[in-house]
């Protein structure tokens, strides 16, 4: 019966929401009880940022069937937009010292600071609002570029689209390192001193940290963005995207405007990649164009594939596992280790990546569809509906 099934699927959703909420609560508790320098928090922060970027890539590659490799380029746009609008004006000269100061003379945080004050609660409000506005701007800039690039590029199919978007990401990276743009982008040098996740730790009057939120903030922001993407996927637009992925001609025959919906999906995906780029900038505390290479796109693509193409929860789980494995669990493989004075063979710098690659190969071999396939967490959590008896009878009909 359709109705009962909907209800069980509703309970699956509820459990998923509870898991996410529990994860956030656990993040706050652990960060305030454990040593804040633990690698666990690096994993949580980076994992949250990568989840968002992976889900945004999944929206395009997994749900709309557009194979794009421009993610790092859009992240770069987002990261730079965030940094340029958030560096406080009093440190701009020291950041842009090679170009005699920046051509941008304000920051969003200071704009809101002028309204709400810079100290105490008002300072917190202006920090939060400034960061939010800058993040949204980061997304919008990425989306505008996506729109312009999409006009010619989205006419291409599969591999050709991948090559074109990859080319775009490389070009953008080169342009942002160009000296002539120095007063805005600081050339090939890094942008720094903008607010990061650590600024969200709540301090008391004497400057001591009362409540650490630096790991909670990226988790929360990513969760909100991913929630918006999930709403989109479940809307009629999401259905149209999936229709395009499954069968372009049938979708077109049903009245889905291909060009319009591909552009829409591309822009929304890039918007969230831009937001992800801004969060990535906050995570790394600096922005430099040379970080956003195609390797980064491939990392994200790997996460999407391991998690399952067409599964949002798969992307999230995979990015946490991927980051945990690469940044934390396999660290020891890079260190030369001595047991009873004898050196353990193979353990040296770089061996981690060898083991990691083998693990990925094994995962891909045994989970052909990725960890989740195209399923979502709520589907796994709800009880399986009983098989309906009518199936066999119809099969004999043919």
């Amino acid at each position, binding site marked *: 019966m*359709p109705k009962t*099934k909907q209800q069980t699927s509703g309970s699956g959703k509820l459990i998923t929401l509870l898991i996410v909420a529990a994860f956030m609560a656990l993040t706050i508790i652990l960060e305030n009880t454990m040593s804040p320098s633990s690698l666990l928090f690096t994993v949580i922060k980076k994992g949250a940022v990568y989840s968002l970027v992976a889900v945004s890539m999944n929206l395009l590659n997994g749900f709309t069937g557009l194979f794009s490799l421009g993610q790092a380029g859009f992240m770069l746009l987002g990261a730079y937009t965030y940094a340029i609008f958030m560096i406080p004006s009093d440190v701009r000269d020291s950041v842009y010292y090679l170009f005699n100061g920046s051509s941008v003379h304000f920051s969003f945080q200071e704009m809101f600071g002028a309204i709400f004050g810079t100290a105490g609660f008002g300072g917190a409000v202006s920090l939060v609002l400034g960061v939010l506005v800058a993040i949204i701007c980061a997304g919008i800039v990425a989306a505008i570029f996506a729109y312009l690039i999409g006009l010619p590029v989205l006419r291409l199919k599969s591999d050709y689209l991948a090559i074109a978007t990859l080319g775009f990401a490389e070009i953008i990276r080169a342009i942002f390192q160009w000296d002539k743009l120095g007063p805005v982008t600081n050339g090939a040098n890094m942008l720094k001193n903008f607010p990061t996740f650590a600024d969200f730790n709540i301090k008391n009057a004497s400057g001591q940290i009362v409540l650490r939120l630096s790991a909670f903030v990226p988790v929360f922001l990513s969760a909100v963005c991913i929630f918006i993407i999930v709403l989109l996927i479940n809307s*009629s637009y999401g*259905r*149209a995207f*999936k*229709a395009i992925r*499954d*069968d372009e*001609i*049938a*979708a*077109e*025959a*049903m*009245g*889905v*405007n291909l060009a319009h919906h591909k552009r829409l999906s591309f822009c929304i995906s890039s918007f969230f990649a831009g937001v992800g780029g801004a969060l990535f900038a906050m995570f790394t505390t600096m922005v430099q164009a040379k970080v956003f290479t195609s390797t980064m796109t491939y990392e994200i693509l790997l996460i999407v594939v391991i998690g399952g193409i*067409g599964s949002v929860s798969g992307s999230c789980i995979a990015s946490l596992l991927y980051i945990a494995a690469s940044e934390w669990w396999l660290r020891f493989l890079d260190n030369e280790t001595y047991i009873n004075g004898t050196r353990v063979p193979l353990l040296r710098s770089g061996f981690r990546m060898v083991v990691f690659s083998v693990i990925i190969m094994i995962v891909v071999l045994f989970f052909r569809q990725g960890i989740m396939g*195209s399923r979502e967490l709520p589907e796994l959590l709800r009880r399986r*509906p009983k098989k*309906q008896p*009518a199936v066999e009878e*119809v*099969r004999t*009909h*043919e």
Partner: protein
Amino acid sequence: MREPILKISDLKVNYGGIEAVKGISFDVPEGEIVTLIGSNGAGKSSTLRTIAGLVKPVSGSVALQGEDITGKDPDAIVARGVTLVPEGRRIFPDMTVLENLKIGAYLRKDDLTDDLDWVFSLFPRLKERSWQAGGTLSGGEQQMLAVGRALMSRPRLLMMDEPSLGLAPLVVRDIFSIIQEINKQGVTILLIEQNANMALKIADIGYVLETGRLILSGTGAELLVNEDIKKAYLGA
């Protein structure tokens, strides 16, 4: 005579570099079942795809109740009440039956309950399977889903490209009786078929295409008894 719902004039279509349709003209009167028959490569599919806007014609015109819709985008044509059930069903295999049906109504923003009920009353089996993935249906059920999906756009003219393709004779008979039922409920049908016998039996008007040209027309009953047609298409 009333104005036909669809009027094709001197339509020429190139497909894959060759001239697939070489200037054909025909009418589809409102409320009737019209069939185009002909062998492989006669230009039947190209004609339907052109009407649906999936292919742009070289010359000629397509008029829907007097309005020229030649070369309009597919979504504009669907919005005007002309929907194509594509050849080979082309349902969305990873989506549930219900999602497939909702895609059919994509351009409509109003309430779908009545139309879902209508489609489910025509195809009760789809209701039983509404939460199943489209790809898990049998061939006949997939064809029903393809027809149901097209009906969700509430078409005035429903075009079907080879609905009997690859189906067992018993299932084909079901499909054709449902086509008649849909027609009775006021939807004009333009049907192309290789199974000429079946198509002509239910058609009010038949047109015969050969290598891109219209060579014969008549009522379904007339064509069924025509000696040339019998030899060429009915295998008698």
